[in-house]
Structure formats: structure tokens, C-alpha cells
């Protein structure tokens, strides 16, 4: 790896920089240890799942069980189907939130129109409602209008989770975005719409990446809404994972851990592929002169 360039005022190997690295290292040990332990748990047999620590005979059986027809028998849903359902729900929810939220964020960020703060606060306020408060009436209504156990129903409800996040994060980016670039495009004869699409949108790419990623993750991990609002046809994966815990005598922590790891793979893939958009964006600074 090429040596990183030093920022202003930084020295390469000072006590401060070593101290900084140690702090980072400490955080990552804390952060990764439970995940490592979860992987170990997923590799343990039933008899060893709680009676051993680090010395045990590993097995890949749990992963096989989760994905096989045995897994379907234990949870009454095919795990790969559940993964697919989650992908459809979450990608759908994020796309809807982006398509509808970006204009709203742009309007509030670029033009401080009268009432923009109120609109923004209203959007945010939908996150205030405790889930349990709305879940029972929502269940009744969904059954009445036929949205119970459907993808559309979940995508709509997930807007409560994804929309406020996307709109608020992107508003900050649109606020910081210098207006000059867009003005330049307008002077060149672009319509407002093209100026927006060709100039403004690419400038806030890191923001879109961060917002979409976080919204996707929160939608993916949402538990209460799918628990109540889906049935046997469109079960998402987070609900399926908890079914592996079993009941009535023995708890299968190892199966649950294996299932949770598999369920974490799609968001992980999304995160890794979006990573490159999170790096330093086009330098605004160049324009400010």
C-alpha cells in the first residue's frame, strides 16, 4: 500500500499517532469479538453449543441445515425464499424512498422555502410513532384492504423507517452543495431538471450512498413490522431467523447463529459494493475561489 499522505500538522509515527491507532484497535476488538464468537457458535454441535468455549469440534452442518429442507421444516419457510423476500422488500423500499425523498431533500436543502422546516419535521415525525402503537390498527387495516402478507404492504410500511433517514441525510448534503456549479450549468442553457440530474446529483453521491446503505440496513433488520404484518407467503428473513431458536425444551442457538450469519450477507454485499462511493467525493473546494 502506498504510504498515506499526511494531512496538515501530522507527523508519521508520533506517540499521538500510535495512541490513536491503539484506540482504534481497541474499538475493533470490542466490535468484532461478538461477531467472531457468533461464527464459532454457528460451528458448534447441539451438545457443545453452550458447554464449550474455544475448544470444540467444528461442523458446517448448521449452515447446511438452515438452507436445506430440514430448515424449512423447522421454520415453515424456505430460507432462500425468505432472503429473496427481504431483498425485494428492502430494495423496493429504498428505491421508493430515494425517488420520492431526493426531490423533497433537494427542495428543502437548496431553497429554504417557507415551511420547509415544517415539512422536514413532519417527515421526521413519522419516526416518532412507537411501532407498537401503530402495529395493531395497521394490522386490522392491512387485512381489510388486502395488504396483509404482501410485498407492497411491507414496502409501504418500511417507508416509516427509510424515508425520514434518507430525506434528512440528503438535505444536509444538498445544503452543503455549492450553488455555483448548478448556476454554471443553467447559464449554459440546461433546463433546471437536467442541471439537477447532471450536476447536483453526482455531487451528492457520497450522501446518497451513505443514506441508501443505512436505510437498507435498517429496513433489513426491522423485526416488529414483518412479525405482525406478514404471514406464510412473504416472510422476510429476520423473522425466519428467530424461528430457529426452537421451543419446548431445547434452544438451538447454533442454528440461529448460522441463520443470522447467512441473513447478514446481503446487506454486507450491499455495503461492500457501495463503499467506493463513500470515499472522498468530488472536491467542492476547487470551485471556491
Amino acid at each position: 500500500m502506498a504510504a498515506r499522505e499526511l494531512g496538515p500538522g501530522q507527523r508519521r509515527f508520533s506517540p499521538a499517532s500510535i495512541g490513536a491507532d491503539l484506540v482504534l484497535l481497541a474499538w475493533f476488538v470490542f466490535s468484532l469479538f461478538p461477531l467472531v464468537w457468533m461464527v464459532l457458535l454457528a460451528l458448534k454441535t447441539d451438545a457443545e453449543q453452550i458447554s464449550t468455549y474455544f475448544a470444540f469440534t467444528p461442523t458446517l452442518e448448521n449452515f447446511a441445515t438452515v438452507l436445506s429442507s430440514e430448515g424449512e421444516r423447522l421454520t415453515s419457510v424456505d430460507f432462500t425464499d425468505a432472503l429473496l423476500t427481504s431483498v425485494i422488500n428492502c430494495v423496493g423500499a429504498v428505491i421508493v424512498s430515494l425517488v420520492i425523498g431526493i426531490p423533497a431533500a433537494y427542495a428543502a436543502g437548496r431553497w429554504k422555502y417557507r415551511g420547509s422546516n415544517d415539512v422536514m419535521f413532519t417527515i421526521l415525525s413519522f419516526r416518532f410513532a412507537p411501532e407498537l402503537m401503530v402495529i395493531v390498527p395497521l394490522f386490522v387495516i392491512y387485512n381489510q384492504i388486502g395488504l396483509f402478507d404482501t410485498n407492497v404492504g411491507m414496502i409501504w410500511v418500511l417507508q416509516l423507517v427509510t424515508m425520514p433517514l434518507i430525506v434528512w441525510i440528503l438535505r444536509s448534503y444538498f445544503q452543503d452543495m455549492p450553488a455555483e456549479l448548478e448556476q454554471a450549468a443553467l447559464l449554459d442553457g440546461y433546463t433546471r431538471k437536467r442541471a439537477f440530474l447532471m450536476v447536483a446529483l453526482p455531487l451528492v453521491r457520497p450522501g446518497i450512498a451513505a443514506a441508501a446503505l443505512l436505510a437498507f440496513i435498517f429496513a433489513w433488520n426491522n423485526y416488529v413490522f414483518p412479525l405482525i404484518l406478514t404471514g406464510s407467503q412473504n416472510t422476510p428473513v429476520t423473522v425466519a431467523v428467530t424461528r430457529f431458536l426452537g421451543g419446548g425444551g431445547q434452544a438451538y442457538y447454533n442454528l440461529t447463529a448460522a441463520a443470522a450469519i447467512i441473513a447478514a450477507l446481503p446487506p454486507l454485499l450491499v455495503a461492500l459494493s457501495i463503499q467506493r462511493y463513500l470515499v472522498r467525493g468530488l472536491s467542492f473546494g476547487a470551485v471556491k475561489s
Partner: protein
Amino acid sequence: MTTTAPPRTPAPVVQREPRPVPAWRRGLRPYVLSIPAVLIIVGILYPFVLGAYYAFLNYAAVVRQPVFVGLENFANTLSDPAFWSSVRVTLFYAVVATVVETVLGVGIALLLNRSSLIGRIFERVLILPLMIAPVIAGVIWGLMFNPQYGVLNYVLGLGSTFDWLGETTAIWSVILVDVWIYTPFVAILVLAGIRSLPKEPFEASAVDGASWFYMFRRLMLPMMWPYILVAVIFRFMDSLKIFDHVFVLTAGGPGDATRTLQIGAYQNSIIQLQYSRGSTYMFLLWVIVFLTARYLVSVLGKAQRRAAGSEE
């Protein structure tokens, strides 16, 4: 004046003056752009109002004829010490968790921004704790916390008598799990924000001989405030409503040590089938969230203005 403006696609062949848009249409534009966002969630308003309405009835599964009782539920709840205990627990949880996560998150973002070797290796895995659903994280941490067979007591040498979820330790342990899951959220948000800051002011400052600390306080922090505050708002609101992993770990116990408002509501509505009492809890929780959000948003507005001012 030379700029390194982004490469532009060639201008359209036909050069013409853009047709002037009437003023009233221009004024309407922002509203038109924003309405769909508000509309799509309006559907949620109806169940919310319904849920809130239950708080004004004496609705429970065993009550044959629920009737309107006005503010009686509120009177009962507001004079119930269990409710106030829940409020205390919830506020304590939210404040501590948010403060710790913000400080840690900003710190990690700053450290990662240095792009040291360690930083670059681990940045990829920063987000991993967020990949695990909070419910599952609760299960896994519960297994780790167990004094009998949990790995934490084993690895830290605490023996089989240290109880992570005892009367005095439970609240700290559930906050610890919250910090584990959500600090990456703050860090990622702030890091993305830092990375989009303009380089110029910092270069200019360095040329003037400023120390890193000075640059941080005078330049970076004010410009970062808006991003930090977005993270704070979302974290604080979500922690006020916390349920998933706390319920898995302690079900609100021991006693009432970790009985947050939403857990109390759950126990009333779902376990005891006292819908109206549960709705009252949730309505009051909603009020708390509303008020604190309003306050935080106005703070955000001020910070925004200060940041814009400091860039001049």
C-alpha cells in the same frame, strides 16, 4: 480564473434562452417536489390516530363494552409510580447511549479519517455490527453475558458469580449492547460528512501554522455539526423507543431496572391485553419523542447557520 470544474457533457446544439417560468409556478415547485414524500406516509396517520384514540377508552380484551373515559387513563398512568420509573429508565438510557455513541462515533470517524494502516484495514468492517438484527444481537449478547456458560466471564476472568444483568448492572449492560450496535451508524454518517468537507480552509490554515487541535475546534467541528446532529437526532429518538434487544435480554427486569416505556407498553397491551393502558404509555412516549425532537431540530438549525457563517 482556472477551475477544476467537473467535466461537462457538451452543451446542447440548439442554444436558446430558457423560457421564463412564471413566478407562481417557481414558488410552487418546492411544495410539488415535497408533497409525494409526505403523502406516502399519510397512510400511517390513520392507524396512528386510531392507536392514540384507544388511550381515551377503557379498552381491554375482557371489557365487554369499551366506553370513552376521557382523560382517566392519563390520570391513572401519570399517578402510577411504575410509569414514572419507566420514564426515568427511558430517559437515562437514551441520554447515556446517545452521548456515548456520539463521542465514540465522532472519535472513530476522526481517527479513520487519518487513513492510517489500521484504519484502512478496519474501515471495511466498521459496519458489521449493524448487519445483525438487534433482536439477534440481544440473543447473542445474552449468551455471552450468562455467568454460568457465557464467554465474557470466562475470558475476563470474572468467575461464575458476576451477574451482568443484575439489579445494578442490567441497565449498563443493555446500554453497552446499544453502543455496540449503533456507534458504527454515527461513525459512518460523520465520516461520510467529514470526507465531503472542502480541503481548502484546512490547507490555508496549515499554511498559517495552525495546530491540528486548533483546526479541529475552529474549522472542522463547526462544519461537522450538522452531520453530527442528524446522527444525534436519529439515535436519541430511536433510543427513547428502544425495545428489541432490551426485551430479549431482560424483559424489563430485574424488577423495573430496564423497563423502558415501550416495554411497559408491550406488557400492558400485548401480554395483559389492556390495550387502552398500553396506548396511554405509547401516547405519552410519543409526546416525549416529539418534544425532544423539536428541541434537537432547532439546535440543528442554529448549528447549520453557524456552520454556514464560519465558511465565509
